[in-house]
C-alpha cells in the first residue's frame, strides 16, 4: 500500500515510472519477476529557486544557522539559492504583501525560507517559516526548540522540513554516517552527521573494527571486530548501547549487510575454507548458506525490496560483481568490464548499484544498472576510491578515498558532481555506511 501511494504521488508530480519487466527463464521454466524500480527524471534538471533569510537576537548564532541551512538546501540538490540586492521585506507574519511578492517574482524566487533564532540560557529556538512567492501564503511555520549544543541538529530538522514541504521528498540533513577511523591508533567505529560534523566514537576495544552496516530502522549497527582475536560479527544497539557478538565461526566472519525488513543479516564467512555468503537473523540464529562456488564470495548488499543480493566473487578468476536471488538461486554475473570490481552497494531507489571499479592501479566509484547496462564511472582524480554507500534518497554516494594522501570520507552526487570532503582530522577514515534515516 505504502509503495502504491508513493508511486501515485510520484506519478502526479511527473516522475516516470519504469514498469516491471518479466523475463522468462526458459532453462528452468520459471517466471522470474524483476524488481520494480522508480527513476526520477524530472526535478533533477530544474531546481527550485529559493531565498534564505536567517536572523536572530545574536547575530553570530544566526550566522551559524544560516551557514548550516544554506549548505543543507544546496546539498539537497533541489534548490538554487538566490542571492540578491535591494529587496525589502516588511512584517510578514502570515502572508507576503503584493509589493514584496512582485519583487521576489521579478528575481525568480519561488519560495522564501525564514528562520529567526532566539537563544536563552542553554536553549535555542528556531522559528522557521516558509512562504510561497506566487500566492504569498505561508506554507508552514514551526518552532524548533533544543539544547544549544544541538544547534546544527535543530537546523537540519528545519532544512528537512523545507525540503519535504517543497518537494514531497524526505530530506537527508538529519542522516548520519558510520565509518572506521584510526584516530586513536586503532581502527574504531565512529558516527558523524551527514555533513561531517559531530563525530562520535562507538567502539573502544583497541583491536580492529571494520565494515559497519546500519540496520534499516537506524537503531542497530552490525560490524566486524577482532576484539576477541578472531574477526567476528557484532551488533550494537544504538538506543541501549548493548553489544552482542552474533557470530564466532572459525575463520572470517565479515561484511555484514541488513535485509531491508531488518530481519536478516547477509555476511561472508570462511568456515568452509572459502569465504561464502550466508544469512542469519540478528541474533546470529537461523544460519543459511547461499553460495557454494569455489572462490571468495564477500560483500553482500540487498536490493531495496529484499528479493536479490549483489556480491563480490572471484569465481570467474577475477573479483567481479554477481547478483543472486535472496535464496541463493539464479546467480548471474553483473560486471564484465575491468579486472577487479568489488564493494557493491545497491541504491535505495533500486535502479543502480555503486561499486569500486579498478582503473589502472587504483579504484574509482562506478555505478551500473542491475541489468548490467549503464556502466558509469562517477569519480575521477588521484588516489583510490572505495567502499561506496548510498544516501537514503539515492541521490548521492559517500565513499572512502586516498585522493589527498590520507584516507578520508567524501560524498558526491550520483551524477559525479559536487564532490565534498567530510572528514578533516589528520587520521585515516574508511568504510562509510550511510544511515537509512
Amino acid at each position, binding site marked *: 500500500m505504502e509503495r502504491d501511494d508513493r508511486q501515485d504521488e510520484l506519478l502526479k508530480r511527473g516522475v516516470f515510472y519504469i514498469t516491471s519487466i518479466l523475463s522468462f527463464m526458459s532453462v528452468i521454466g520459471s517466471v522470474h519477476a524483476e524488481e520494480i524500480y522508480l527513476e526520477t527524471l524530472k526535478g533533477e534538471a530544474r531546481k527550485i529557486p529559493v531565498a534564505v*533569510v*536567517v*536572523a536572530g*537576537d545574536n*547575530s553570530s548564532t544566526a*550566522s551559524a544557522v*544560516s551557514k548550516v541551512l*544554506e549548505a543543507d538546501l544546496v546539498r539537497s540538490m533541489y534548490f538554487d*539559492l538566490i542571492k540578491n540586492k535591494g*529587496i525589502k*521585506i516588511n*512584517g*510578514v*507574519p502570515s502572508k507576503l504583501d503584493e509589493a514584496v511578492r512582485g519583487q521576489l517574482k521579478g528575481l525568480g524566487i519561488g519560495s522564501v525560507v525564514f528562520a*529567526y533564532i*532566539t537563544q536563552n540560557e542553554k536553549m535555542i529556538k528556531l522559528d522557521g517559516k516558509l512562504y510561497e512567492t506566487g*500566492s504569498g501564503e*505561508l506554507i*508552514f*511555520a*514551526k518552532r*524548533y*526548540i*533544543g*539544547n544549544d549544543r*544541538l544547534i546544527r*541538529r*535543530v537546523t537540519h530538522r528545519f532544512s528537512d522540513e523545507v525540503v519535504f514541504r517543497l518537494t514531497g521528498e524526505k530530506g537527508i540533513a*538529519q542522516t*548520519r554516517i558510520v565509518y572506521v577511523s584510526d584516530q586513536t591508533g586503532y*581502527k574504531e567505529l565512529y558516527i558523524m552527521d551527514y555533513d561531517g560534523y559531530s563525530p*562520535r566514537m*562507538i*567502539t573502544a*576495544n583497541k583491536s*580492529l573494527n*571494520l565494515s559497519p552496516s546500519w540496520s534499516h530502522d537506524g537503531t542497530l549497527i552490525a560490524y566486524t571486530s577482532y*576484539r576477541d*582475536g*578472531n574477526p567476528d560479527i557484532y551488533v*550494537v544497539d*544504538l538506543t541501549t*548501547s548493548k553489544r552482542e557478538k552474533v557470530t564466532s565461526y572459525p*575463520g*572470517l566472519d*565479515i561484511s555484514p549487510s541488513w535485509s531491508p525488513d531488518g530481519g536478516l543479516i547477509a555476511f*561472508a564467512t570462511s568456515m568452509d*575454507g*572459502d*569465504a561464502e555468503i550466508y544469512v542469519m537473523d540478528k541474533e546470529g540464529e537461523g544460519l543459511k548458506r547461499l553460495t557454494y562456488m569455489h572462490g*571468495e564470495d*564477500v*560483500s553482500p548488499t540487498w536490493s531495496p525490496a529484499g528479493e536479490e543480493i549483489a556480491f*563480490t566473487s572471484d569465481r570467474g578468476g577475477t*573479483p567481479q560483481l554477481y547478483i543472486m536471488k535472496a535464496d541463493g538461486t539464479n546467480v548471474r554475473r553483473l560486471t564484465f568490464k575491468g579486472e577487479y570490481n568489488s*564493494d557493491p552497494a545497491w541504491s535505495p531507489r533500486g535502479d543502480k548499484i555503486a561499486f569500486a571499479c579498478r582503473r589502472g*592501479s*587504483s579504484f574509482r566509484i562506478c555505478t551500473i544498472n542491475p541489468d548490467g547496462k549503464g556502466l558509469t564511472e562517477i569519480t575521477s582524480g588521484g588516489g*583510490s576510491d572505495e567502499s561506496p554507500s548510498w544516501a537514503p534518497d539515492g541521490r548521492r554516494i559517500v565513499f572512502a578515498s586516498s585522493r589527498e594522501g590520507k584516507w578520508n570520507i567524501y560524498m558526491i552526487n550520483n551524477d559525479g558532481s559536487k564532490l565534498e570532503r567530510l572528514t578533516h582530522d589528520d587520521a585515516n577514515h*574508511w568504510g562509510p555506511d550511510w544511515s537509512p534515516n
Partner: protein
Amino acid sequence: MMKMIKQGIRLVVVLFMTLLIFSGCSKKVATIEGSSPSSKDIQTTVEVDSTAKSGGAEEVITEPIALLNPDIEEKMIEPSDLSEKSRSPGELLESDKSGESATNGDKAVSAGDLRDVFFDFDMTILKEGEMDILKKNAEWLKKNGSAVVRIEGHADERGTSEYNLALGEKRAYIIKKYLSVFGVPQKRIDTLSYGEEKSFCADHNEECWAKNRRGHFVVVEKKGSL
C-alpha cells in the same frame, strides 16, 4: 484555506489561525540588515511574533540516538596488556620491523626459524621458492613438536578491504594445507586474516606491496624447550 488543505498541509492551518489570533497582540519587531551571510545583500525586516505559541507546530529537538558511551559494554584494554600483544622482536625478516601482530590475549613468542612466505598480487598460489621455505618451516615444526603456530594472512593495500580479508584468509588456509601435506598436524596450525588492515610496510610502491602480501608465522604456544 481550501487550497492549502488541498495541498495536504495540515499543521499549517492550525498555525495560520493561531497567527491570526495573535496578530493583534504585542509583537517584537526586529529589523535585520545583513545579519547573516545569506542576507547581507538583502535588506530585510522580519517581524517576529514572539507571543505566537504555535499550537501543535512546535517541536522539541532531542539528541540523536547513538550518544552511547563506547566504553559501555566495551572492555577497555589497558596499555600494559597491549605490550603483550606486540609481536616479539627478533623474528622473521629484517625488513619486517613494523606493526603488531595478535590483537587478542595470545602470548606470541619468537617464531624462531620460521620464515614468512610471500605471494603475487591477487594470488593464493605458492611460488616455488616459497614452497621451499614452507618445507623448512614444516621441518622446524616437526622438530618442535609442541609448538602451535598461527598463520596470519595479509594482502597489499590495492584491493578492496573486504575482498582482501578473504584473500588473506585464503593465503593462510593454503599455507596450512601445505604444512599438513608436509606432515604438520592441522590442529597445531591456526589461521587468521588481517587482509590489508595491518600492513608491514606503509609506502605505496611495489617493493612495499610485495612485503605485505604474505603469510606471517606467529608461534602462539610452545611447551618444552627449543
